[in-house]
């Protein structure tokens, strides 16, 4: 692979915030929206937009429910998302390899 062949990288993940979302979600079973926001340091609106893109790509499942009368949004990496993230890492590592 060419060192700078971006076409080989998954466009859905190849964005700073979406990459961060995927990295956080791969290290947990599931996480609330507020947890993601804190870990990534994004605004609510920005995070929502990027989560929506990941959800549309079926990389992330987003569940909204009420806990103690408060709305809670929970995000989880899907199997498809996990595979895509692993492939993304593989490709990055291939670029680094001499």
């Amino acid at each position: 692979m060419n060192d700078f062949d971006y076409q080989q990288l998954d466009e859905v993940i190849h964005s700073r915030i979406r990459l961060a979302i995927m990295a956080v979600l791969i290290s947990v079973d599931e996480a609330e929206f507020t947890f993601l926001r804190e870990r990534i340091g994004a605004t609510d609106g920005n995070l929502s937009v990027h989560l929506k893109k990941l959800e549309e790509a079926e990389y992330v499942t987003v569940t909204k429910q009420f806990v103690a009368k408060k709305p809670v949004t929970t995000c989880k990496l899907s199997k498809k998302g996990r595979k895509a993230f692993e492939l993304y890492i593989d490709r990055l590592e291939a670029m680094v390899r001499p």
Partner: protein
Amino acid sequence: MENNISLQESFRPEDELQYIRKIIADSRASFVEDGKPYIWWGLVVAVGMSVTYISALTNRDLYVGYVWIGLVLFGFATIIYYMIQQKKQVKRAQSFIDRIQGAIWGACGGSLGLAVLLINTFQHTGDAPTIHPIYTCFVSSLILGIAYFLSGIANDLNWLRNVGFAWWAGAIVMYLWPTVHVLGIYAGMILVFQVVPGIILQRRYRLLTAVLSEA
């Protein structure tokens, strides 16, 4: 794609991998153990075992049974209080390590409690085998060895895993040298290999939570 333009201009796969590693490490750090249960139970058992040891050495009745009942009740009360406090904290993410950690200590703690209860309470009942109570220290050390070994691996902490080896080494000594001094050795081991790891975990937890809250 909106972010890709700026990303590609300065894109270096090494930096990207480093960035991913940092985020994963930070996320995992938010699940680090606080070490409190290690310290509480360690102190409870160390006190109980020391009283038992002194009582056995001096041949004096120091109300060992009552001391143990009081200590175990105190231990359970603090653990229940701890669990209530943990539940009150908003847990905004769940991790596999959390579940594994709970399973390891639940299984080992249950086995340990059952072994101590059976050996000390029911050994003269029916056809139950007679095992000298001193061997509860040997059995406990073996089980604690398993718990620490697995806990160290689950948390990716080599020093915590090695504490498991220390417990197993202690178990060998206790089995081969089954004298009254086993009680003293066990009390010392609990302080060194239970309370001290708890303090180290507590310091690590404070450090990591401070770093994460600054980030």
